[in-house]
């Protein structure tokens, strides 16, 4: 007992000394600034290096060195999210069909809410059908110089990577998910996003979606950030639903993400922005 108490006391003393030592070291060991007076801040010229639009590296390739300029500061957290409410089936009154339309009925709520089906392997897609709507805003006269961006699906197929790091988010991204991983994901979702190009004021239909990802890289939940506009603006709702369809599309599941970096991508913020394509 005595010995134990002695030991405890000894440890206490040692611990206190060490802590004190550490604090003293921190205080006195900090660098001393030689310059007597704080010099006025001078701007430091920095070269901003553009990152090429095309990443040659595929997601599966060996980890490459980051070809980035100094890592950006971690961005502040976005405002707290609202809880998304489960969308209940709506029952709307019907428009009257012609004269013989005395009454109209709304549907009852669906009785059984089907449970989510087990995840199944996505069916291999047939070659994307050659539809006339394969690109956006056609102009037979080619008044504008033929913009390469008018054929999204093609560029996507060729494996080119649009540099989407623009707009609201600046250089974007966590420090750790590589640019090539980011590109792979962007390219994948671009192929599943059916853009609302012909809608009125399509340039205002920018949709931000926050998703949570399961460790198996499937989308656990997807939530449109601007819930208020979702409830009031039918055009925005249509655009938001097109974004959600892209994220839930079996063609784009699982997400192309480095499997061993779950912590880095368990939540992802997508910004669906059709402005460049109009």
């Amino acid at each position, binding site marked *: 007992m005595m010995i134990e108490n002695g030991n405890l006391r000894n440890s206490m003393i040692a611990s206190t000394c060490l802590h004190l030592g550490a604090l003293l070291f921190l205080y006195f060991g900090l660098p001393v*600034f030689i310059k007597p007076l704080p010099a006025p801040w001078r701007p430091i010229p920095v070269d901003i290096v553009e990152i090429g639009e095309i990443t040659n590296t595929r997601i599966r390739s060996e980890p490459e060195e980051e070809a980035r300029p100094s890592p950006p500061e971690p961005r502040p957290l976005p405002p707290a999210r609202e809880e998304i409410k489960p969308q209940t089936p709506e029952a709307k009154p019907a428009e009257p069909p012609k004269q013989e339309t005395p009454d109209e009925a709304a549907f009852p709520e669906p009785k059984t809410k089907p449970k989510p089906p087990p995840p199944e392997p996505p069916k291999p897609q047939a070659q994307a059908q050659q539809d006339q709507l394969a690109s956006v805003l056609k102009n*037979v006269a080619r008044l504008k110089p033929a913009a390469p961006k008018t054929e999204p699906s093609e560029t996507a197929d060729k494996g080119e990577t649009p540099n989407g790091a623009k707009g609201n988010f600046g250089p974007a991204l966590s420090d750790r998910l590589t640019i090539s991983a980011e590109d792979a994901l962007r390219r994948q979702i671009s192929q599943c996003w059916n853009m609302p*190009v012909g809608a009125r004021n399509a340039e205002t239909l920018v949709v931000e979606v926050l998703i949570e990802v399961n460790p198996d890289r499937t989308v656990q939940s997807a939530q449109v950030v601007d819930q208020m506009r979702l409830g009031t603006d039918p055009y925005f709702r249509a655009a938001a639903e097109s974004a959600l369809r892209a994220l839930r599309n079996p063609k784009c599941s699982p997400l192309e993400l480095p499997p061993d970096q779950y912590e880095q991508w368990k939540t992802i913020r997508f*910004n669906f922005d059709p402005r460049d394509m109009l």
Partner: protein
Amino acid sequence: MNRMQMTEGRYQMVRVFALQKFVLFFLCLLMPVFCPLASARAEVRIDITRGVVEPIPIAIPAFYGAGGNEAQFGRDIAQVVSKDLVRSGLFSAVDPHSFIQDRDSLLVAPRFADWRVLNTQALVVGRIEAQADGRLKVEFRLWDVFGEQQMTGLAYFTVPNNWRRVAHIIADAIYKRITGEDGYFDTRIVYVAESGPANARVKRLAIMDQDGENHRLLSDGRALVLTPRFSPTLQEITYMAYYNNRPRVYLFNIDTGRQEVLGDFANMTFAPRFSPDGNKVIFSLSDNGNSDIYTMDLRTRRTQKLTSHPSINTAPSFAPDGKRIVFESDRGGTQQLYVMSANGSDVQRISFGDGRYATPVWSPRGDLIAFTKQASGRFYIGVMRADGSGERLLTESYHVEGPTWSPNGRVLMYFKDLPTGSGGRQRTARLYSIDLTGYNEREISTPMDASDPAWSPLIP
């Protein structure tokens, strides 16, 4: 600098050191608290600025009907809904032969996995029930297959022979729920049906549903009919007809069949068109080689002259808010488009491209103006914004003219004609529609040659 000052400077220095040290010291102490937070903030952000423009795959199984009669209506309605949506270019129908889930079990609940493997994004499940009074109850639900929830559900009661309209109304409801814009399937087209040789062409007024069904002729062909236009508010049209070589502007109510002469103008009249509230008609009158734009109040029959310029001013069309008017004029030397306010003031030229611009039509959505353009011996249908920017030409042909907007401002219809026969003395004219993105051009089949289409508003 004396010694005093130097000492003071040194004191200042020391104070600054001390401050810096304290700040650094506390920062170091707090570091372990902030570090985990900073790493937790790392969040992947991805901008998606490209996508595809593809039709949305939609599955529309035949609506369920218990009896043979109801089942037949169920098949017919599902087919019309499907055709409407596919024709819009925004949807593609999933092949019914590939369906996994059967119709009966669909009524309980969709098995979404069975539809997902077919890459179905939207699913329409409907049911038809005969009522005791002889009417049909037609109900449907639209399901979001990926989101696994109901998007909308509606029911209608109708007499059986009205089933086609109900199908169009359902197609409109689905279109609206998915695209956010009003549909345009429950609408009609009025056009000029042409027949006979080029030198003795018979031109009659004709009407049909927007999908070409329920075609009928409205005039007997004794008068030459031109430029029919729908009222944006009523099932009423205005058009021009030549009786005994005298042009007159007529008003014709499709539902009642009532027709009246709006004006019997001594001088040549062109291109009457309704104002957005349906209370006025705007047109041009020619006088000594010039023409100017007038409006006429349909109740008071009072006319007002809006332009007074020694040039041709014609083909006026109101903006949907009624505040501005687009028209064509050669006041600048060539035929170009101009916009003015509703009282004729503040005229501004908006078209500046090569060639000549004609027949401007303001979109019911307000954002675009459609026009006919003639350049380098070809005709084009194009659109531009109301300020003249963003001109795009959607289609071209030997002769293409007369654009008219669908009531939701998403689709344009026009006619193309081509010389046929020996030496190209005959001509064949057909109606076409196109999405305003410039894709999905489709012919609308008509029993005779067709020109000058006019799209109705949604049928009330």
